């Protein structure tokens, strides 16, 4: 747009000033370029003539008379009850993102507007506003829990009192942010929105994790020790197949890692921690199970033999029993009674 720095004298003034009108109108139209061509035409149709007539007889440029064309276009639009300018971003991925964001914001506004019309909106909103500090605390708790989950490999970093201090600071900070609303538009507000959305999404995961493994704020990030159906195992009493108790048994998991338990009753380490039963345990506190023998304690050979030999003998002498058994008494073993009982099935 041209804004003459030198003002022509009276005689030439009118022509010079009027030459500025088309460029001024063009600037106004450019500001309205997010509207449909029909709307732009309805708004600015005949504008050149109007401006030119308004300027007639005045030694003024359109800028001086009507102000900034951008503000002029915005006033025109507002008076016509058209929506505020929707920035048309440069083409490409950025524009698609910006448009998506704009659509999101618009639909959120519409949704909020629809909610506002409900009679219960105000009481519910007031109630939620009261809960805002609680949400701030919950948000901080989720953030710290997620942080701890991410550095679980180095649990000492966030273990014990350090974790509690961090949680305290996070809660104070988060609640303070919540009370200091509304945040300024742009960066901080968007960050808070993103943080809230992430916290809402992470909340079920954290709650799930906590309900599965107890508080995440025990002294180390990960649940220590050996657990069975929600009860911690403090000792293991191994027995062999004959039901005899074993001592000094080393246990490993399927990955070759030693299996250990928390020895909360005894802080003194006694040998390798994966040897069971643990030596430090008070024998009186142990409940000895009544362990059945999986295999009999006696020598196996004597008892097993009879069941095998008749079977092999029986195959040799099935239905033809009378003649065969009589003719073949040779092989040393004497299966006389057995064969008749076995082959029937």
């Amino acid at each position: 747009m041209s804004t003459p720095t030198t003002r022509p004298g009276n005689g030439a003034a009118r022509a010079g000033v009027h030459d500025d009108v088309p460029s001024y109108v063009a600037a106004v139209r450019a500001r309205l370029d997010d509207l449909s061509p029909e709307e732009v035409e309805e708004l600015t149709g005949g504008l050149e003539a109007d401006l030119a007539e308004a300027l007639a007889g005045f030694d003024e440029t359109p800028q001086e008379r009507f102000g900034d064309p951008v503000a002029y276009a915005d006033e025109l639009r507002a008076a016509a009850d058209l929506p505020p300018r929707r920035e048309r971003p440069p083409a490409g991925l950025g524009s698609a993102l910006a448009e998506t964001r704009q659509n999101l914001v618009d639909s959120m506004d519409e949704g909020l507007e629809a909610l506002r019309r409900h009679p219960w909106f105000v009481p519910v909103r007031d109630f939620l506003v009261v809960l805002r500090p609680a949400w701030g605390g919950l948000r901080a708790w989720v953030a710290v829990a997620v942080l701890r989950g991410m550095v679980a490999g180095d649990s000492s970093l966030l273990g014990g009192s350090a974790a509690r201090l961090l949680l305290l600071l996070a809660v104070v900070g988060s609640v303070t942010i919540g009370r200091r609303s509304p945040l300024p538009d742009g960066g901080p507000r968007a960050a808070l929105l993103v943080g809230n959305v992430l916290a809402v999404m992470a909340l079920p995961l954290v709650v799930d994790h906590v309900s599965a493994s107890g508080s995440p704020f025990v002294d180390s990030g990960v649940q220590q020790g050996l657990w069975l159906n929600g009860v911690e195992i403090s000792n293991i009493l191994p027995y062999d197949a004959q039901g005899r108790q074993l001592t000094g048994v080393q246990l490993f998991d399927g990955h070759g890692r030693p299996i250990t338990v928390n020895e909360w009753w005894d802080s003194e380490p006694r040998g390798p921690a994966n040897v069971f039963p643990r030596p430090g345990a008070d024998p009186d506190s142990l409940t000895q199970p009544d362990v059945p023998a999986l295999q009999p304690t006696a020598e196996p050979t004597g008892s097993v033999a009879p069941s095998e030999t008749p079977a092999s003998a029986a195959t040799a002498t099935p239905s033809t029993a009378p003649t065969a058994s009589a003719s073949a008494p040779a092989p040393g073993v004497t299966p006389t009674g057995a064969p008749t009982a076995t082959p029937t099935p």
Partner: protein
Amino acid sequence: MDTTQLLKGVLDLAVLAVLTEEDGYGYDVVRRLRAAGLEDVADASVYGTLRRLYAAGSLSSYVVPSDEGPHRKYYGINDNGRAALDEQTATWTHFADTMQALLKRRLPAATLRTTEVQA
């Protein structure tokens, strides 16, 4: 008091009233409003209002070509617009009467204070 705020509320009514006298184009309407005493009226607000009233169906519009310059867009009030004008006139009259009555009650005190200040 900021009259631009007041104007916003009554601009529709004022524009409709002006157009009952005679059809007019944008700046013509502005000029007639100013001549009637609404000096603070802004050009762009009037043009926008004309468009809005046209979109709402209260005005009709036609373009008059000009030999020596850009065309002019004329607006005229239609039956719809006259009905809107009647309704809004009733609303405005009631509102103005109410305000008048309200202000009259404390008028003596206000005048008294003014004279005290002057004295």
